[in-house]
C-alpha cells in the first residue's frame, strides 16, 4: 500500500467512526432516552408515595415485588428514608416481571386502596423467595394471609382483586417504565437521574447525601427551605 493509500484508509476510518457516533447519538435523541428527559411525576398522579412533597431528593422506583435485588434496594431506601425523613420523597411504580409478580402487584394495589400500600409492600418483599416459588393457589393464599396480617378488610380485598381495572393500572405502569427505558428491576430515577440496581442506588445515595451534607454546612441555619 502506498503512503497516500494508507492516509486515505485512516481518513476513511475516522469518517466511519464519526458518522456512526453521530448516527447513534441522533437515534438516542430521537428515542428520548437521555437521562434528563425525565421529570419526577406529580404526586397527585401516583398515590403510592411516601415522604414530603417538597423533599430535595425525589425518587421514582420501578420494581418487582419478587425480585431479590429489589428487596435489597427497598431496604436501602428504607434505611435512608429513616435517616433523612424530611429530605426524601419516594414514588413507587409497578414493573412486574415474573409469573407471580402480577397478582402480588394487584393485591398491593388493593391494599393501597385501603391506605396500607407500604405495609403490604414491606410484608411482600420480606417473603420474596416464598411467593416467588409458590405455585397455583398457594400464591393467592400467601397474598391473602399478608392482607389478613395487616388487618385489611377482606371483603373489600376480594372485590378489589377481581376488578380488571386494577390489573390495567399495573400494566399501564409497566408501559410507562418501558417508555422511560426501564429494562431491568430495580430501576430508580433520583431527581430524574437514572440509577439501575441496588449497588448503584447505594453509591448514588452515598454521593448525594455526602454532597448535600457539605452543602448544608455552608448554608446558615434558618435559611434552609422547610
Amino acid at each position, binding site marked *: 500500500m502506498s503512503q497516500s*493509500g494508507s492516509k486515505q484508509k485512516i481518513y476513511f476510518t475516522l469518517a466511519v467512526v464519526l458518522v*456512526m457516533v453521530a448516527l447513534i447519538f441522533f437515534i438516542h435523541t430521537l428515542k428520548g432516552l437521555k*437521562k434528563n428527559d425525565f421529570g419526577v411525576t406529580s404526586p397527585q398522579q401516583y398515590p403510592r408515595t411516601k415522604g414530603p412533597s417538597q423533599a430535595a431528593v425525589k425518587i421514582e422506583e420501578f420494581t418487582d415485588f419478587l425480585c431479590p435485588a429489589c428487596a435489597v434496594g427497598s431496604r436501602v431506601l428504607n434505611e435512608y428514608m429513616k435517616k433523612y425523613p424530611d429530605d426524601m420523597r419516594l414514588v413507587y411504580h409497578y414493573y412486574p416481571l415474573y409469573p407471580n409478580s402480577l397478582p402480588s402487584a394487584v393485591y398491593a394495589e388493593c391494599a393501597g386502596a385501603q391506605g396500607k400500600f407500604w405495609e403490604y409492600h414491606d410484608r411482600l418483599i420480606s417473603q420474596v423467595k416464598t411467593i416467588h416459588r409458590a405455585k397455583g393457589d398457594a400464591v393467592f393464599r400467601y397474598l391473602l394471609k399478608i392482607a389478613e396480617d395487616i388487618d385489611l378488610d377482606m371483603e373489600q380485598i376480594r372485590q378489589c382483586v377481581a376488578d380488571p381495572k386494577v390489573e390495567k393500572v399495573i400494566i399501564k405502569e409497566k408501559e410507562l417504565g418501558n417508555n422511560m427505558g426501564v429494562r*431491568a428491576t430495580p430501576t430508580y430515577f433520583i431527581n430524574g437521574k437514572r440509577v439501575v*440496581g441496588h449497588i448503584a442506588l447505594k453509591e448514588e445515595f452515598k454521593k448525594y447525601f455526602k454532597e448535600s451534607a457539605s452543602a448544608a454546612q455552608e448554608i446558615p441555619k434558618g435559611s434552609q427551605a422547610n
Partner: protein
Amino acid sequence: MQKFNLFFIVRLLLGLLYVSSGIEKLMQPYENFVYVLQGYDIVHNYTLERIAAFFFPWIEFFLGVFLLLGLWIKLCLWGYSVLSLTFIVVVSQAIVRKLQIDNCGCFGDLVHMPLHAVIILDVGVLVLAFVLYKKINLSSYFSLDHYYSKR
C-alpha cells in the same frame, strides 16, 4: 464466475454478531449495562463499572462495523479474540461461583442466553476469528483492506 467464499460469509456473520450485540446495548441507557456488569461481581468499583459499561458496547459495535466493511481486518480479529477470551473468563467465574444470572446481558433485550450458551458462542467466535486470521487472504475478499492495498 466468482467462487463461493465461505471465509467472506463467516466474516460478515461475525461482523453482524458484534454489530447487533453492540447496537442493542447502545440503544439502551448505559446504566442498564452497568447493572448487568455488577451481576458478574467482578469489578467492585462503581466508577470502573460505569466506564466499562459506557465503552464496551462502542468497542463491540465498531469491531463489528469494521469487520463488515473489511477495514483493519487483522486488528479486528485480534480484538474479537481478546473480547471473546474476556467474556469466557468473566462468564466462567460466574458459573463456578454459581452467581444467579439468568440472562447474560450480552445482547441486551434482543436475545436472552443462559451462561453456558455464552461460553459455547464465545469459544465458537474465538475459533472462527483464528481461522479467518490464518486465511487472511480469503477473508479479505470484498474488503476495504483489499481495496486500499491496491492503491
